[in-house]
């Protein structure tokens, strides 16, 4: 590795020395008389504001998943944007969006042209997940979930006689708020300093699970965390390249460092009346990087590079081994926190050359390393799910080194025909895993042609081959089946192809694309043995007259996998096979009418999406496979909108959206809180909704506009 680093540094250094920085060049044109008197630069305040209302006619977490319209009722539709600029070049702009919704955003930018710019921004993103879930748990403080005082513990959910009377609805979802600030400062034309900071706050709850040995429960886990990110850097550019030096820092702070929950079952150990899980630990990461490129003085060549060195660390205090004081005392913590120390390295360099207008090529080198230098952590024992003492255990640390070399060349043989070929080699060296090394070699050929008119065809075909080293099962108290091959460490042969066509006959615009890939894990007796993925999509659009345009689109994808398992070993018996085939179909279409009756703009869009997922299992010598009920989702969505300019400044808009969604999912359908004796479920229902949204808004324009002058 040391040699590779030295070679890369030497290569970059040599080019640095060979390349002379130039001052900014101009075409040396005398522009002193170019007064730009007819150029309507902004001089005053310009803005537009929208005020309106929307009404949603049904509650649905899935419909409101990311738009915040999850509750039946009225919402305010308030947005605005505007700004001002002086002739001296100072300016400010602002944009306020969706102020009445949980997706509200605000951005304010101010600065002086060619010198400095500052930005402030705010953004909310809801993630509504479930509104059909129930639980007997209530929160007590930040990090504790308790059962009702009259809860009746039992060895199974069937005996929890207080369950039915204790269940309360509990919505699941989070709100993510991002606040940020940025600053950019220019020294002359070539040197720029910048700094960006943002803070994400995530609050809410997620559906989580825990267990007491073989008895499990689901509960609403509180989420309350903050993530701060900052990047500062400087970019220097010259005629023949640029260089950027930057530092990125990230700090994650979880306010729910652990969660304690009452044990709804009869405890396995006398005092295991509660369980406790660790939350995601507070952690930090940083990266120093230098990026840049050199426009070399021959063959239109460009050398790009990036050298980045980073760290990831965390030192969150460990929890006790168990909530059971008696069990916790049976093992000794080797230290109070992990003091994790991972370093990351990323080195890249690419050289592209274009010796002639018909020939171009590029080669690249990439090296990535994750080096986990955390001190060994071994315990004399642990407490499995707060219930029983486990054997001595050692935490494995995972490191890897990944080296990739790639090359690509293309020749434009004829004015309408280009052929290219590429290849890459990807070597991944891992520690403490079943295979020490996998190496993938990939090659492909490409074709690009414009045989006639506006037709463009791009195609690619290639294959790849992964060779894994010796596969050694990691020893442990419960060893894996020696015939299993983890798919990311297994030998694999792959074929892949893509085809794209774009054509604009007459006034039509046609875009078609398709892809196919097949992976065969020929040396994997157990595990994933094959995967096949084919998909295609197309869009046709065309104007109808001067005021109308229409489009239709559609896509289909089919992903199938085969995997093999074995219930008992050694030997090769009790073998089972599972076949998955996920199908996904979309269709859509729409019409845009401009200036209907010389005034009204109308738009209609329809979207359809359907997914299906049959799963078949063949066990042992059974005569035929058993089929699970087909997984299915179906979406129909219609949106009709119209806008009418009342006058030069005022525009009124109206929109109606109807969306219908249904799904079938055997994994959650019919799983009530006590359906399974060993799982206290929150009982989410498969998504099903039919929602209408209507809205009316008024947009008013203030000040002048570029077209007024």
């Amino acid at each position, binding site marked *: 590795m040391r040699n590779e680093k030295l070679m890369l540094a030497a290569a970059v250094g040599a080019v640095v020395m060979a390349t002379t920085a130039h001052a900014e060049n101009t075409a040396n044109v005398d522009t002193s008389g170019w007064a730009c008197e007819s150029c309507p630069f902004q001089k005053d305040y310009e803005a537009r504001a929208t005020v309106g209302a929307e009404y949603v006619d049904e509650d649905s977490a899935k419909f409101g998943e990311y*738009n915040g319209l999850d509750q039946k009722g009225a919402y305010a539709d308030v947005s605005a944007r505007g700004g001002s600029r002086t002739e001296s*070049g100072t300016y400010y702009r602002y944009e306020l969006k969706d102020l009445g919704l949980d997706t509200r955003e605000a951005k304010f930018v101010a600065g002086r042209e060619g010198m400095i710019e500052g930005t402030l921004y705010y953004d909310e993103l809801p993630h509504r997940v479930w509104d059909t879930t129930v639980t007997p748990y209530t929160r007590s403080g930040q990090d504790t979930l308790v059962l009702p005082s009259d809860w009746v513990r039992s060895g199974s959910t069937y005996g929890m006689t207080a369950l039915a009377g204790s269940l309360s609805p509990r919505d699941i979802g989070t709100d993510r708020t991002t606040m940020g600030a940025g600053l950019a400062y220019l020294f002359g034309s070539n040197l720029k300093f910048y700094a960006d900071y943002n803070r994400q706050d995530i609050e809410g709850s997620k559906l989580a699970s825990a267990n007491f040995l073989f008895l499990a429960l689901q509960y609403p886990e509180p989420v309350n965390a903050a993530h701060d990110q900052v990047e500062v850097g400087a970019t220097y550019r010259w005629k023949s390249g640029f260089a950027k030096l930057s530092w990125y820092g990230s700090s994650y702070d979880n306010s729910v460092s652990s969660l304690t929950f009452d044990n709804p079952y009869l405890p396995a150990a006398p005092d295991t009346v509660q369980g406790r*899980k660790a939350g995601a630990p507070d952690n930090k990461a940083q990266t120093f990087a230098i990026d840049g490129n050199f426009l070399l003085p021959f063959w239109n060549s460009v050398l790009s590079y990036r050298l980045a060195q980073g760290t990831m660390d965390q030192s969150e205090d460990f929890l006790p081994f168990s909530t059971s004081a008696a069990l916790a005392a049976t093992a000794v913590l080797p230290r109070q926190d992990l003091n994790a120390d991972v370093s990351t390295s990323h080195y890249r360099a*690419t050289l592209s050359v274009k010796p002639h207008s018909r020939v171009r090529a590029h080669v690249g080198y990439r090296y990535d390393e994750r080096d986990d230098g955390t001190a060994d952590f071994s315990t004399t024992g642990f407490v499995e799910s707060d219930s029983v003492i486990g054997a001595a255990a050692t935490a494995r640390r995972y490191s890897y080194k990944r080296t990739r070399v790639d090359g690509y060349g293309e020749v434009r043989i004829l004015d309408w025909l280009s052929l290219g070929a590429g290849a890459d080699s990807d070597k991944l060296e891992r520690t403490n895993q079943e295979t020490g090394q996998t190496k993938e070699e990939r090659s492909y050929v490409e074709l690009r042609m414009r045989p006639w008119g506006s037709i463009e065809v791009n195609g690619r075909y290639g294959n790849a081959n992964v060779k894994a080293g010796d596969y050694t099962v990691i020893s442990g108290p419960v060893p894996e089946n020696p015939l299993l091959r983890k798919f990311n460490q297994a030998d694999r042969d792959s074929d892949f192809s893509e085809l794209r066509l774009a054509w604009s006959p007459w006034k039509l615009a046609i875009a078609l694309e398709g892809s196919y890939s097949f992976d065969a894990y020929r040396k994997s007796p157990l595990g994933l043995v094959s995967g096949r993925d084919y998909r295609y*999509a197309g869009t046709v659009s065309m104007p109808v007259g001067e005021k109308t345009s229409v489009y239709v689109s559609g896509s289909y994808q089919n992903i199938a996998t085969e995997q093999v398992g074995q219930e008992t070993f050694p030997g090769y018996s009790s073998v089972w096979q599972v076949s998955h085939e996920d199908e996904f179909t979309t269709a859509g279409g729409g019409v845009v009418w401009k200036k209907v009756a010389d005034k009204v703009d109308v738009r209609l869009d329809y979207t359809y999406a359907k997914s299906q997922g049959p799963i078949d299992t063949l066990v042992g010598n059974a005569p035929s496979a058993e089929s699970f009920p087909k997984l299915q989702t179906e979406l129909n969505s219609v949106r009709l909108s119209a806008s009418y300019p009342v006058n030069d400044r005022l525009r009124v808009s109206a929109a109606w959206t109807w969306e219908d969604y249904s799904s079938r999912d055997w*994994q959650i359908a019919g799983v009530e809180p006590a359906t399974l004796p060993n799982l206290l479920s929150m009982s989410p229902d498969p998504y099903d909704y039919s929602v209408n949204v209507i809205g009316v808004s008024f947009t008013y324009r203030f000040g002048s506009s570029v077209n007024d002058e």
Partner: protein
Amino acid sequence: MTRRVWSHALAVLALGCLQASVALAEDKPAEEAPSYSKNGADTCLNCHGGAPEVMGIFRTKHAQPNDPRTPFGHGQLQCEACHGPGGAHTKRPKKGEERTPVVQFGRGKASTIAEQNPMCLACHNSYMGDWHVSAHNDNGVGCADCHKVHDPRDPVRNKATQVDVCRKCHQLQVADSLLPFAHPVREGQMACTSCHSPHGSLADASLKRDTINETCYTCHADKRGPFLWEHQPVSEDCALCHKPHGSAQAGMLKQRPPFLCQQCHEAQGHPSVAGTPSGLPGGSNPSAYLLASGCANCHSQVHGSNHPSGTWLTR
């Protein structure tokens, strides 16, 4: 198979080189340096002024008179900074001849992509230092195929409208946003550029960060750890289990538990039990290994655990 593709590729390259050598041998006549217009933008706007699709440039970053780096900065070449010298274009063509064109931007225009893109890259090299090795450059994408530089609200630079620009070529990826579980691209709350760098990067799939994981951590820092008990694929590559463009499975997983987990875990005992319809509610043996969250009903800390008793990723 790899060998076969290589042999095909070499043959194709050899043929290409032969053809190219013929083209290379053609001598180009020396060209006269082109002239610029008499009055810059004032000359251009005599004919092209007034149209909103033209005048919008004066509300964009390209038209900042006090920033000498921009086309309309003091002393700069204004319209001709991007469209090239327009002296010949401003002259009345002789009868029967067409007006001399300037550089035109967009697909299907008289100017080729090879003529268009250098106009942009002459100034923007430092913002897209990896363009030269990007998939977009490899596929002959023009800057103006995505950007509308005269539009003050360039759709590709707007989070809510960007996906409609990307959809023109990436229909398959955008269709994935309609899958039951996907990032909020369809809702306009996230853009393709939230993760990808369309101007090229030296990372996989033109990602903005150095690796897939480091890209994911910008929003999912809780998965970063490092944890006391790590789950090997998690620290290596999030995409081993997840499909970031969308999935029919909850959590954007490639498949649902227990089947996904059983692709790597077959230890004797419950991990290797076949999931069959008999494990469904109403079946002969309703199973918590199969229903609800499957394996994750107990092994819920699949991204790693920092609990000293988290050996089996249950705490």
